[in-house]
């Protein structure tokens, strides 16, 4: 599971995350929603151990910067994380070697699923933005992490890749993985989310569970009530 406890992050004078706490259970898909600049990417980077912060983050019961936590964490960044001078297949080889994986053919399966297999000998720099994003996703999933955080994963993807990725989210949930997705596109998550946190100005302003048959407000209604309410206050 993923546990974020009272995390605060500042960039100089700018307060990017203010005392944020939440949990995501195994077999659950949580989404972080919010307008641009709400602090979604910052908390995702803190979880991935890429930023210094105040507070505590646990991944599968271990402190997020520990080796145990790193072994089970997958991170898909907002900007594709690709080496210009490695081919697609070499990216897969790099991940297999660096994570000490045995060859089980999963790399080939992932590349085929995201339609990158025929590009396996293309260099990272020769790929389009969308293909780079797909490769970045493959790199994050190859070592079968238990907890996966996605930062705006749909941006730049073609319809087939979006469909496959949504299928993957469901498969991961069914296999008990913990999923956190940050996005500002409400319609991209509407059919599979379990838990949603709405962020504004670095804080979580509302949390909503996806319960069938409830007569609560829809996620969209709640989102606009909070974000547009903020505009009215200003």
């Amino acid at each position, binding site marked *: 599971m993923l546990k974020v406890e009272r995390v605060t992050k500042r*960039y100089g004078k700018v307060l990017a995350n203010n005392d944020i706490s939440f949990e995501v259970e195994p077999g659950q898909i949580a989404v972080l929603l919010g307008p641009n600049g709400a602090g979604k990417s910052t908390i995702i980077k803190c979880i991935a151990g*890429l930023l210094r912060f105040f507070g505590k983050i646990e991944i599968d019961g271990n402190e997020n910067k520990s080796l145990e936590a790193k072994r089970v*964490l997958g991170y898909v960044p907002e900007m594709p*994380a690709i080496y*210009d*001078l490695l081919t697609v297949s070499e990216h897969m080889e790099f991940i297999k070697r*660096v*994570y*000490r994986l045995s060859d089980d053919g999963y790399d080939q399966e992932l590349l085929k699923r995201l339609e990158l297999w025929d590009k396996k000998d293309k260099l990272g*720099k020769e790929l389009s933005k969308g293909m780079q994003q797909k490769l970045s996703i493959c790199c994050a999933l190859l070592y079968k992490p238990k907890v996966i955080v996605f930062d705006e994963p749909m941006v730049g993807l073609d319809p087939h890749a979006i469909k496959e990725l949504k299928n993957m989210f469901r498969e991961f949930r069914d296999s008990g993985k913990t999923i956190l997705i940050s996005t500002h596109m409400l319609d991209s998550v509407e059919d599979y989310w379990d838990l949603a946190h709405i962020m504004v100005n670095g804080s979580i302003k509302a949390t909503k569970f996806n319960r069938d048959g409830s007569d609560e407000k829809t996620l969209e209604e709640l989102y606009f009530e909070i974000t547009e309410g903020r505009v009215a206050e200003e």
Partner: protein
Amino acid sequence: MRALAYLILTRFKNRIKNTIKNPGAIIIIIFIIALVVISAINNPSNQFAKTYRHISEVYAMITALYIWVFVMNCLNGLSKGASLYSMPDVSLVFVAPIPTKKVLLYGLIQQMGTSLLVGLFIIFQYGWLNSVYGVSLVFLIYILLGYALVIFSGQLSAMMIYSLTAGDDRRKTVGKFIIFAICGIAALYALITIYLDKDNMVNAAVSVANDLPIILFPIAGWIQAAVVGLWTGQGVKALLGILAAVIYVGAIVAILTRSKADYYEDVLQATEASYTAINASKEGRIDSALPHKVKLGRIGISKGFGASTFYYKHLLESRRSRVFVLDRITLIFMIVNIVFAIFMKNVGIVAAFSFATYMQVFSVALGRWIRELVLPYIYLVPEPAFIKLLHCLRESLMKLVVEAIILFAIIGLILDLSIIEIIFVVFARISFGLLFNAGNILVERFFSGITLKIITVFIYIIIMIVISIPAITAATLINTLVDLFPPIVQSFMAIGICNFIVSLLVIFLCRNMLEFAELNNR
């Protein structure tokens, strides 16, 4: 045209406002002004009996610099063109109902401003140019203006070359032939002249760079003539140089506007390329200067497991990006150092070594391991932080050993050093490479959270100076206190030992840097 004038003025105004609001920029400006003022106050030209090296050497350096910049720009024109525009210009100005000629004029005015900014590094050379050659600030400003004009003309030429040759391989070959023919004739003339006076090669090289045939080199030679003419009061020479440059620029503008009114498509690719590069630098990513066409060769990393995979990946990346054993930037730095050593032959190894060390501060910052810090993998991989750091450094360390041996074997021969002396100079050079790498680790460990890049650069330079102090002090002291070996051997041995101790200490103390560093691509 009012819209374009508004755009130019408002951007200029906002740039100044932004500079005033930016404490980092103000610190740097104060630092530059202080540097120039201190150099001016300490100007030994006010004192008696100060002998400078001959100023014609500076004229030769100007020629070399201008030719290099101009030719590189023209060659760029053959591959990807050049652009006077930014991406917002492409999106907003190109599609606006404004005549293309006016848009071209707007691009030219903008480019002039950018060229001046690009040339600001010349001001940093004031200290040594003033103390060695007695170059005044006014002359340096002439050189800067000339440099800006060469860049400006070079960009314009690249745009024209691209416009005339894009999509036509035969024209490209002709273009390449013309550029290489002009360079070849100039190089042949220079080599023959220098060879004929081989007893005095440095003087011959200096004199050939100021000879008429080289001064006739398009744009670079003409502008050199204008700069030198203005400075030495040779009005006719200056006037001819300026006139030739103005006619050249006018002719290109005429060709661009008359022969092919629609140049938008031609500049689009170059604009996108420069936009990506600018964004990369704003986000702290270091442009890896990738070759345009990469030869794949054997596919696969093939070796490594766990953290050592980073090292083998670096070897593969280096194989794909290198032209020789060393990368292009390192080779350029080496050539500059060797040329400096030739010019400063009489001063000895200390001057050549100091200059090479100064350059090394910047070349070390381009190491492949630093580029690794801008992608998440190095932080995410579940291996001990110190082991990952060591494997990341391996390739850079190997490169600096090769570079030190080649560079100082050549410089040692030029300066007539003995084998033993060369060995210790190489040892000291390697130790400085290690020290500056350690300094980089220190900066990343403690200052990676600073968002203002300009402040980071400032801190970087200060840290490099501070960690160099023990070695410099030891080298100075040892020659005063001990007389066991020749002075060069003693001082460079002390430098090497001191630097190794400081470097290993810094690397050990910052061994957990990867746990504390922040991903550097915000």
